[in-house]
Structure formats: structure tokens, C-alpha cells
């Protein structure tokens, strides 16, 4: 930890060291901005790609095909080489007017005063509770984020034979993770008549020997200590029980915008993203936002290649797109500062 940034000033403070935040930081430094500080609450920089243990990452950024962890490492190295200051284990506790940020780290609380602040806190999946799914609250119920961080960061597994809920692109990423970790999902569930992803992506279920159950929804999660089974209902309302030791809720992304929600910045209640103009600027012009935390309203959302427009889930951008968005907003910040 570099203590020099605490109780200090900087040109641009970036909250979040995922692809969007780091891409912006690097571009800002390359554009001659003096002091660029990236604030990361985790003990390690790099964001979500750190625990996506599969390719393809880095095609757009490094013209190479990398796994998530290698890509994250390379991004961090590039940022450090460019002169970006990355401060770890440092949590922003409030966003003040005039770019006054309240921080806390194991060394204590501090203030950082930034000429511009870029919010790049990313996105997360909607957990079981917020989906109002019926049943027990036993152990073994989690999201892809939990699964992948357990597997790729800590070499552990939360279950051995889970039921996978959802058919977004991340759901298939979860299947890959399961395959790598020796987890055998018992089925993949989708309430809609079609999977969210296009053909042939959903054919992966065949390859992994995971039955894909369409028009099927969870009626009840059973189990006292740990999940023991799930009751599901098919398109005709027939209920049956599937034995499993976990339920993996995938996708249904929502921006990690709690800091914004508690701040003076405007939040769009439909997308849960900070309200931004075409330059990525928030309702307080000192603040900008980029990456996955900025989601467009559904009717304006870009449709990624693996989805059909009529079957688009809550959109989420991949690392390369976040990287581009981070750079684009960083260019606007450079213009704004000069």
C-alpha cells in the first residue's frame, strides 16, 4: 500500500480496478495526466477476470488470447508501468461533492480529493434472495461469482452436483468452471421456452452432459443444513424433484451501485446505474462512470453477438468492451481537464 495517496489530492481517482477502471487509468497516464489513483477494496487488483479461469480474454487489448487471471495480471502490470497508482484494500465509504472521497483502509480512514472521479465498480449477479425463490435457505446456494472466485482464487468448491439456474452467457461460463473443478451439474434450468444464448452455444450442455430443461422453474428448494433437492415445475405445471447439493443462480446482472445510491448522484431506478450523459458524466460533473456499472435502458441496449435481440437478458459487457468503454470515458475526462 502506498500511503502517500492518503489524505491527499489527485487528478483522477478511479473506483474499481477491473478492466474498465484500469483501461481508463492507463489511457489517462498515456495522455499526460499527472496523478491517477485507482482505489481497489480487494487485496488484489484486476476485478472479475481474476476469477474467470477460461479464455478468451485480451484479444482487443493485447492481441492475444488469455485466460481471465492472466489477462487481469497483464492489465495491472500495464497500469503500474504506465505510472498508475493502485491502492489495495481501500474502500470508498462515501462520494462527496467536489470529488471529496472518504476512504478506509486497514491503516485507518482518510480523505482523497480528486479533480475528477471515475466510478467503475462493475456489476454483480442477483442473488437468490432478491429473486424471491421459494424454499429452504440451506448451504450450497450461490451465484457464479461465488463459484468462480472459490474455484479460481481459493481452489475450493461450494457443491459437487448443483442445479444451474439461467441460460445467459455467464451460465455457460459457469458450466466451464464446473467442468474444470470436477463439479457435475444435474441440470440447467430456464423459465423461458428458449435459452437466452443463441444456437450453438447452448449445445454446450450436451457436451457437458447437463440436461437443459426449458420452460421449467424452481418451485421449492429442499434441505435443512445443505441443499438436498429442488422441486421444479415444467410447462404443464408438473412438479418433480431433482436431487442436488446446491443451486447456482447465474446472471440477472445488476450494477454494483450502492455507493451511488447513498450519494448525491442521480441513479436511474430502471437500470440501477448512475445517470450519465453521452460523455459518461454523472449528475455532478466532477463524477464520471464507465464499464458495466453503466447499463443502458433495455430499449437502447446493445445486443451482444451471443444473444438474440428478442431474448436479451439484463445485458453485461465482457472485459474487452469494458476496456473500450473505460478508454472512451477517459478521453472525455482528459478533454474535460485540459
Amino acid at each position, binding site marked *: 500500500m502506498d500511503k502517500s495517496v492518503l489524505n491527499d489530492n489527485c487528478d483522477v481517482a478511479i473506483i474499481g480496478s477491473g478492466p474498465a477502471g484500469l483501461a481508463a487509468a492507463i489511457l489517462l497516464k498515456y495522455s499526460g495526466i499527472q496523478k491517477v489513483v485507482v482505489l481497489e*477494496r*480487494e*487485496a488484489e487488483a484486476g476485478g472479475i477476470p481474476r*476469477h474467470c479461469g477460461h479464455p478468451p480474454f485480451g484479444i482487443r487489448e493485447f492481441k492475444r488470447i488469455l485466460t481471465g487471471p492472466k489477462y487481469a495480471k497483464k492489465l495491472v502490470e500495464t497500469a503500474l508501468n504506465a505510472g498508475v497508482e493502485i491502492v489495495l*484494500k481501500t*474502500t470508498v465509504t462515501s462520494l462527496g461533492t467536489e470529488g471529496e472521497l472518504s476512504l*478506509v483502509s*486497514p*491503516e*485507518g*480512514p482518510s480523505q482523497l480529493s480528486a479533480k475528477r472521479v471515475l466510478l467503475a465498480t462493475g456489476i*454483480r*449477479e442477483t*442473488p*437468490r*434472495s*432478491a429473486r*424471491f*425463490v*421459494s*424454499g*429452504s*435457505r440451506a*448451504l*450450497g446456494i*450461490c*451465484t457464479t*461469482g*461465488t463459484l468462480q*472466485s*472459490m*474455484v479460481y*482464487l*481459493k*481452489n*475450493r*468448491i*461450494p*457443491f*459437487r452436483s448443483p442445479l444451474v439456474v439461467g441460460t445467459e452467457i455467464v451460465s455457460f461460463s459457469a458450466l466451464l468452471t464446473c467442468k*474444470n*473443478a*470436477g463439479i457435475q451439474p444435474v441440470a440447467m434450468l430456464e423459465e423461458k421456452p428458449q435459452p437466452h444464448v443463441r444456437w450453438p452455444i447452448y449445445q454446450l450442455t450436451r457436451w457437458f452432459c447437463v440436461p437443459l430443461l426449458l420452460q421449467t422453474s424452481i418451485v*421449492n*428448494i429442499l434441505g*435443512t*443444513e*445443505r441443499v438436498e433437492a429442488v422441486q421444479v415445475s415444467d410447462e404443464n405445471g408438473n412438479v418433480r424433484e431433482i436431487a442436488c*447439493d446446491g443451486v447456482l443462480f447465474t446472471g440477472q446482472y*445488476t450494477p*454494483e451501485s*450502492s455507493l451511488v*445510491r*447513498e450519494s448525491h448522484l442521480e441513479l436511474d*431506478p430502471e437500470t*440501477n446505474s448512475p445517470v450519465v450523459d453521452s460523455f459518461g458524466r454523472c449528475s455532478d460533473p466532477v463524477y464520471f462512470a464507465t464499464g458495466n456499472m453503466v447499463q443502458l435502458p433495455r430499449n437502447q441496449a446493445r445486443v451482444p453477438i451471443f444473444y438474440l435481440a428478442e431474448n436479451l437478458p439484463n445485458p453485461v459487457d465482457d472485459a474487452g468492451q469494458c476496456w473500450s468503454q473505460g478508454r472512451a470515458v477517459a478521453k472525455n475526462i482528459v478533454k474535460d481537464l485540459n
Partner: protein
Amino acid sequence: MTKLLNIKSTTKDNSNSPSLLATADVAVIGGGVVGCAVARRLALEGASVVLLEKAADILGGASKGNSAILHTGFDAPIDSLEMECVRNGYHEYLQIHKSLNLPVLKTGALVAAWTEEEVERFAGILAKAQHNGIEDLRLLNPEETLKLEPKLSSSIRAAILVPREFVIDPWSAPLAYLKQALANGGQAIFNAEVLSGDFDGSNWLLQTSRGGVKAKYVINCAGLYGDLLDRNLLGESKFTIKPRKGQFVVFDKAANALIQAIILPVPTERTKGIVIFPTIFGNLAVGPTAEEQESRNDASVHKNTLNDLHTQAVNRIPALANIPITATYAGIRPASEKKEYRIVEDVSRNWITLGGIRSTGLTSALGLAQHVLGLLENQGAEFESLSEPVVPQVPNLAEHLQRDWETHSGHSAGYGEIVCHCEMVTQREISNALEGLVPAGSVDGLKRRTRATMGRCQGFYCAARLAELTEGRFEEPFAVGKAHG
């Protein structure tokens, strides 16, 4: 490790019966809020106490899920034992909370009427409160109500302000009680289900799943299983537990700014109605439902019920429509076939049962413990109360008071890292919860002691780190094994 310590510390008293796990004046069966409060009171009175809990940690039953309100008893049954215990429990909590580092959020409550029919019931509520000695209630018209709580729906007809209904921490309080019991010579044995027992005319020999326990008196605080325990050990039970489930929906912390007071419903003949309440952890919650069920342990939630709770909350506070959901949970109240508390004494067999302790149990527990002491003394028990009892403190989890991550002065600097970002739980808090007098015995126990994973992401960001930090600690762990093998 602690389990071993517990056994070790008990063996010294058992020179003539080496197979006994513990010998004590009083055995308290059940580690819910009532059992913890009774163990504390008796330990402070100088009794040797052993608390027997069948689960790996306290609070696994009825005390797991409730609305965490410190009740004045303004609407408790007139001249009832419940009223007496609520009143005494309320006063004792306010006396001891600071010394144990337990929080109080002085919210006050509004009994909100949404129909003329409900307004008509106000006279009865006011009269009852008067009779119960709660005299500071105030009738508010819609304008006054909305001035106090501007985010309430303007369809409010009237309200009664109950200024001294407060919000507390439903899990830290019983933990503090048990900690104080243990710090003053008491013992707690976990994973010790009481299977059978014999009374030899002066002592009970209880057989638990961990071994035998000898005690002069037994206090049955087994909550949802209280009637079964009586039936099993005494041959009969004077009451039958009728489990009543209550589901809750917890809103994001952003909702906390919308409302200051606990919003109570006007109880009707048919239903007690749902409460909208600030939590000590900085959220806003709505519940509980009241669903009779057979099962004593099925605390499952149901989609339609949760949706209904959500709708009701939004009808009362329209701005909640834009607030995300953080959590859902359910608790089971150990109701019986009658409304009142079921306190049963078997004087000839040195046995007291505290049964049918429902919604008010969190408040009344300390009062019930005083009541139990009185009953034991009437039965001839003599204890010499401790002159200088040890007063251990519990970590603060209340949002409005200083949390661990906010303490930085002097020796307390260096919390390691923030492990759970949504609830700002530090590595130091996790480590502390795994140690000490009453270490977490399960994943849920750790959550209740620290708040880890109980925030908006529900473990998306921190479960992996927690799996690592708690490796080998719990019988049912976060992670079931290694990846890649």
C-alpha cells in the same frame, strides 16, 4: 477446539462419575434467547449452570428469525405473566445494554391505521396501554403522522405514537447473555441433544447425545421442542407447540433513510398484521406473516408470500418500490394452543418449563429469567449472588454505532482487510467470532456474529474468502472440497 475445552473444564467436578460431561446446580436445556438469558441470570446469582444445546451453536431455532423489537408491552395481555416479563425484560435490557456493548436504536413506533375500522380500534389500544403502565402514547392525526414520517403513504388515517418501542440486535443480545453466563462460571455444551433423563429425588441425570449431565434443577427452554422434551422426560406436557412461521423481506440499506419509526399494524381479530421496521443493521424489513404449520424446523420462504409482503410494504411506503431487496428469511414462533406463555412447574421433580414464548421472547427473556429465579427460590434453591460479576462485551454490529472498520485509535488499528464489503465486516471480526467464550459453531452462527454475507450481494464477493478463513471450522462448511480433485 473449544468443544474439547468445554469437556475438559467440566471433568474436574466429576470425580465420582468420570463419565459425566458436567455436574451443575441447574441445567438449562436450549440455547435460544430464553435459555441464554436464564443461564446468565442464574450464573450471576452464583448458581453453577450448564446450558445444553443440541445444535452446534446458539439461536438455531425460534430465536433465529424475528423482528428484533424491544417491546414496551403496551399491547401485551393485561395483567399477564407475559406483560410482567416484557416489562421487566425491557427495563433490565436498558440497564445492562451499555455494559455488554449491546445497541439500542431509539426509533419509537407508530401504530398505523389505514381504514376507519382500524381507527375505531385505537380507543381499546390506548386503554390497554394505560392499564399496562405505558402512559406516553400519543394519538396523531394524518398531518402529524406524515410530519413525523413523510414517506408513509398519504392514505394514512391516523396513528398512535409509542415513543419507547425500540430496535435491538436480536443475535448479539442472547450471545452477550450466554457469554456473561460463561464468564461467570457457567458452561455451555453444544451438539448435546437431551435424549432422556431420570430424577432420583434430588438430582436429574440427563443423557445427552454427548454424554451424561447431572443437575439439581432443570429449566426447559427448548422452545419449538419444549413440549416434546416435557413429554419425553416427565411423561406428559401441559401444552402442545403449534409452530407458526413468519416470513420477512429485507430491503437495501438505502430504504433506511425513508422511515425512522417501527410501523406497527392495528391488530384485528383475524390477524396481527405485518410490521415495517428499521433493523439495527441499517436495513428496513417487512414481516412477519403468521402461518400455522406442522413442521418445527421448516423455515422456508415462499415466492408468493414474499411478493405479497413486498406489495404491502410498497403500499405503506411507496418509495420502497425503487429499493432493491437484500434478503428474505423466515422464523418459526413456538406458539401453543393458547395465547399466553406456558410456564409449567413440576415442583416435585425440580423442573420448570418455559413454553409458548412467542414474538415477545426477545424482550421478555431477561424478565423470564428473573421469574425463573423466583420460582427456584420458592422451590427452596439457595444461591449466593456474585458480588463482582464479570461483564464481557460483545462486538458492535449496529449500523448507527461505531463498527470495527471505523475504530482506528491506538491499539485497535489494523483490522486486516474488509472481507464482506456490503456489510463492512473485517477480517479481525471474523477471527474474533471464531474464538472466545462462545465461538461460532456454524456458518449461520458466524453470519449472526459478524453480518458476513448478509448484505446485498449475499456472498457474491466474499464467500470464497470466507471459505478460506473458516476452513476446518464447521461441520457444514462454506466449501465442500477442493477444486480439481
